[in-house]
C-alpha cells in the first residue's frame, strides 16, 4: 500500500522522458483555467493553511510553467 503511493511520482518521472512536440498554437487546452496548477489561489491558500495547522507535514512546490506559453 505504501509503495503504491509512490506510483504517481514514478509515472511522472517516466512521462518526463518521453514527449511529443507541442506547437505554440496547440496550447489552447493547457491555457484553460481548469488546467492551471492552482485553479483557485485564494481558496487553496485557505485549505493549505488548515491542512498545515492540523497535520505534521508541510511544504510543497511553487507552481510555475506549463499553461499558455504566451509571450
Amino acid at each position, binding site marked *: 500500500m505504501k509503495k503504491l503511493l509512490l506510483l504517481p511520482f514514478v509515472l511522472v518521472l517516466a512521462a518526463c522522458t518521453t514527449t511529443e512536440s507541442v506547437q*505554440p498554437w496547440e496550447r489552447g487546452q493547457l491555457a484553460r483555467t481548469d488546467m492551471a496548477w492552482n485553479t483557485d489561489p485564494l481558496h487553496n491558500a485557505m485549505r493549505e493553511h488548515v491542512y498545515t495547522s492540523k497535520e505534521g507535514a508541510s511544504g510543497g512546490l511553487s507552481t510555475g510553467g506549463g499553461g*499558455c506559453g504566451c*509571450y
Partner: protein
Amino acid sequence: MMHKRLRRIRLHLLLILPMLLGSISFGLQAAPAPDFTLPRLDGSESVSLASLRGKVVYVDFWASWCAPCTVALPEMDKVRRDLHARGFEVIAINLDESEADAIRFLQRMNLSYPIVTDPAKSTPTAYKIAGMPTAFLIDRRGELHSTHAGFRPGDSAKLRLTIEQLLQETP
C-alpha cells in the same frame, strides 16, 4: 551515426531560432514574406497576402485563449482605422483548434480588418512562430520588415510609428 549528429545539430538550430525570434521587435534581413491565401472566419471570400502588395501589412497570429493576443486585436484595430486610407492593412490569422471559440470571442469585438483561419496551420509553420502572439510587419515591397513577439497594453503606439515610416516608402 552521421545522421544522428546531423539531427542533433538541426535540433540545436530549432532551439536557437525561436530564441532569436522571441526577442521583441528586431530587424529581419530583407526577405519576401511567405505568401498565403486563407478563408475568412465569417465564411466570406478568401484573403491572399499577394493581393495586398503595395500596402503595409501587419500579419497577426492569435488565438482566443491567449491573453496578450486579446489585447493586440482591439489596439491594432484603432491603428488600422486611422491608417487604412494611407495603405495600411491588418490580417489576423486565427489558430484556435475550435473555430466556434474564435467566433464566440469575436462577437465581443468590432474589428474592421479581415480575420482569417488556417485549420492546416501551414502559415504559423511557414512564418516559424515560436510563441503567441507573434506578428509580422510587411512593407510595400512585400518584404518582412520586423517581428513583434508578445503584446503589452500600449505596444500599438510604438508600432504605429514604425508603420507610418513604412507608409512613407515607395513600393
